[in-house]
């Protein structure tokens, strides 16, 4: 099928884009990579009357680090961030050396987001703004405890990942607001992350996704752990209980198994054509265990490298 008619705007600055969005009100829609929106237009699942194509805005596709160790002390406290412009293409982040060193879990999970042609075009910000419960990037943002920068009529504000995903394909962005940057906490000291999913074929949307991030103290005990799940609820889901179970432990098998059980208890997945609810719940246990085990192993590696700084 073909898209219904719309008015097409192609602003060349953020200010113009925000003005166009404000004017369009409920009728307007941001067009970024188009890899989720255009299928919806083609199938007429969406028919906005104004499309604001943000691809001509320059400066919103940068990938950089910010925070500790920089002359301008823009980073808060001792945190360091990988800051990714909303318009950075998924394929660019996947191949970014900076991402590989600061947030190695991002390239890892991007390698299974659709296919190279969809990642060449699909943006990082678009994936997060779309908030697909089965999207890998939203789950990673949640597991890493990142945040987004949102620009709107009242200026720029930040929304933490925990407050961003509020329902099926729904974020807490307000009308007329646009996501401009994603901030992923950069790896520092004895931290590690892990990612695991099961999908019918490479590049397909997964049946279940787990992403974990673990920080160890100098003695090797878990100082903090975050586990996020995808494709098993109406939104990407953080499982605080898994972090609680692991806190203070050494991340040994019994603790990991208890955390995986906590993840299973936190979900009530729905049946789907190829994956009944029971199978999905089973996957949550297996994948949560895998992601956490990887995260603990990588954090321990960093600790032995003397990276507890």
């Amino acid at each position, binding site marked *: *099928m*073909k*898209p*219904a*008619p*719309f*008015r*097409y705007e*192609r602003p060349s600055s953020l200010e113009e884009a925000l003005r166009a969005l404000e004017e369009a009100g409920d009728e307007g829609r941001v067009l970024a990579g*188009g*890899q989720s929106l*255009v*299928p919806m*237009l*083609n*199938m007429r699942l969406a028919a906005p009357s104004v*499309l604001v*194509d943000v*691809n001509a805005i320059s400066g919103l596709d940068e990938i950089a680090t910010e925070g500790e160790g920089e002359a301008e002390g823009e980073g808060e406290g001792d945190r360091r961030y990988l800051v990714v412009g909303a318009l950075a293409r998924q*394929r660019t982040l996947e191949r970014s050396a900076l991402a590989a060193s600061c947030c190695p879990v991002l390239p890892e999970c991007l390698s299974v987001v*659709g*296919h*190279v*042609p*969809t990642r*060449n*075009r699909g943006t990082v910000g678009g994936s997060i703004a779309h908030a697909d419960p089965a999207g890998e990037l939203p789950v990673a943002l949640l597991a890493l405890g990142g945040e987004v920068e949102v620009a709107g009529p009242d200026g720029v504000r930040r929304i933490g990942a925990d407050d961003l995903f509020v329902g099926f394909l729904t974020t807490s962005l307000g009308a007329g607001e646009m996501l401009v940057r994603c901030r992923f906490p950069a790896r520092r000291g004895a931290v590690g992350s892990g990612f695991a999913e099961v999908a019918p*074929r*490479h*590049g397909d949307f997964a049946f279940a996704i787990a992403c974990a991030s673990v920080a160890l103290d100098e003695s090797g005990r878990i100082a903090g752990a975050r586990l996020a799940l995808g494709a098993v609820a109406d939104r990407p889901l953080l499982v605080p209980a898994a972090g609680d179970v692991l806190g203070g432990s050494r991340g040994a098998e019994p603790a990991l198994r208890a955390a995986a059980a906590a993840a299973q208890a936190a979900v009530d997945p729905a049946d789907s054509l190829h994956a009944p609810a029971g199978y999905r719940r089973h996957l949550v246990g297996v994948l949560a265990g895998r992601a956490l085990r990887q995260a603990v192993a990588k954090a321990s590696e960093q600790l032995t490298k003397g990276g507890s700084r």
Partner: protein
Amino acid sequence: MRRIEVDVNGSRHVRHVDERRLLSDFLRHDLGLRGTKVGCEHGVCGACTVLLDGAAVRSCLLLAVQVDGCRVDTVEGLAGPEGLHPLQEALHRHHGLQCGYCTAGILMTAVEMAGEAGPHSVEEIKQRLSGHICRCTGYAGIVAALSEVVGS
């Protein structure tokens, strides 16, 4: 309607297009380049894959107005005066196509791969082909052909 100027396979085209015209339909219906095929129109089958400024993209998920000022390469640009492109030759030799509906898209992905630092492992080739649905060949011939040209 908007005026766009696009370089397709090295020739410049100036056209007025409806804002909602998909790039796939622009190529096929407005420029008459029907080598690019349309299967699903939601990004899944890969039949419509073309190169946009050198990168493989789904032409069914782009508006023609978005490629104003860009370069697009389609399957029609592959064969030269000396004959078929080496990737086309290899697909032919390895029986990498039957009905040919998926072939143009697969070729454009393969051309993108040929431009990258290689060689590509069989595993990588299979992963890249996961974005292209072929209902005829069973893929073995396609993998063999691509391995010969972009593989180790």
